[in-house]
């Protein structure tokens, strides 16, 4: 490794190594004291890049984890995370890409009711959390993803959600009504006529 890591870097490295949970810079600072934490975290990230262990940031919290390509040698049978149902996966994706979102809004996209257990499973996993109420009649609960969601799926932030920019640019995250306005009532019959 590089010569002579300074004591502050060594302290940050050790603290992250023993930490039970990913740590915010503020939590880290409670243990390691004064120093240029941002620069140190950046330096550690760089030093560990390409190694068997990597330092990563997820939702503002930092942790060491093994490199993804080594999964096959490290995975144990009991490690397999619980498989989500298709409904749960879709619901999770809708919450993540649209958050905060109400149950009715999820149902509008999926075309079916959200089964009782689906949101429960997602909340129990710690990936989804209630995020207040929407100030519309009925004040429905709205849901959002958690920091644990980002950590679990390896996302530094919601901006890193796969395809987020493309989906937004294509208007696919807008409600149908809004998209319809944008299209100005353009006909789809053209397609059918062409085909006929």
């Amino acid at each position, binding site marked *: 490794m590089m010569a002579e890591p300074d004591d502050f870097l060594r302290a940050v490295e050790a603290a992250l190594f023993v930490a039970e949970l990913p740590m915010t810079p503020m939590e880290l600072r409670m243990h390691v004291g004064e120093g240029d934490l941002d620069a140190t975290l950046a330096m550690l990230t760089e030093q560990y890049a390409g190694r068997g262990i990597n330092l990563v940031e997820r939702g503002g919290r930092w942790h060491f984890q*093994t490199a993804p390509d080594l999964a096959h040698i490290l995975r144990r049978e009991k490690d397999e995370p619980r498989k989500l149902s298709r409904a749960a996966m879709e619901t999770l994706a809708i919450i993540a890409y649209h958050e905060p979102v109400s149950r009715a809004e999820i149902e509008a996209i999926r075309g079916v009711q959200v089964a009782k257990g689906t949101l429960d499973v997602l909340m129990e996993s710690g990936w989804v959390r209630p995020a207040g109420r929407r100030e519309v009649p009925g004040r429905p609960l709205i849901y959002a993803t958690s920091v644990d969601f980002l950590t679990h799926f390896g996302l530094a932030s919601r901006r890193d959600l796969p395809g987020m920019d493309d989906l937004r640019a294509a208007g696919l995250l807008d409600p*149908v009504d809004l998209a319809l306005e944008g299209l100005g009532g353009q006909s789809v019959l053209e397609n059918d006529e062409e085909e006929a």
Partner: protein
Amino acid sequence: MDEDLFAPPAIFAPDILTVSFDSWEGPLDLLLTLARGQKVDLREISILALTEQYLDFIEGARQLKLELAADYLVMAAWLAYLKSSLLLPRQEQAEPSPEELALRLQLRLQRLHAMREAGARLMARDRIGRDVFRRRKPEGLRLVRKAQWQASLYDLIQAYGQIRARTQPVVHTIAVRPVMTLDEAIQRVGALVGVAIEWTQLEAFLPDDLDPPKAKSALASSFVAALELARQGRLEIQQDGIFQPIYLRASVPGARGDLL
């Protein structure tokens, strides 16, 4: 494994309808599966063709007497209406236009499809505990909380007061009440009435400067003493009416009874 999750069920062609409708999560899901069967971009999808496919599919299911949930039939009815509207000459179309309804359906299918793909991509990421691992037994950072005990002098003396209040044996002492005994009163009234020739009010026989409680007791005792002395013939008592002042005087020998 995750990549296959959103592939259409292999049995969507109407001629091999051995399908259970449990495979779909409602009509929109079925429509999306059929639409993807058109193998074109969803933006290019032919809603008319899709409608035909769906209606054929439902018809096939009904011929096989498959149990169909109501919402599949509602969708079928709506699509049948949409189809006929789309085929009508344009001027006879109602509001909202069938084109708009078709476009709405297309947009919904696009959105559902986008979220389905997003979900699959999310699941395929390097996930903790499956693809990347944290330490299984981290030692943990310990924050040892050192108590900084706080207590004020008031807390201290209050605590001591409470102990004393709680633990001392309770001793009941009956206080000696300030009274004038009957014997005292007899002596006093007897002595004083000897010099009282004229009618004198009972209160005059009481000692001065008594506390109110003792004064009451002295009055009561002196009254009883007066009765006793009258019985012995040593004094006379006179009262003009109920609650009127009581007068005493030494008895005049021989005059006893004249005044009563």
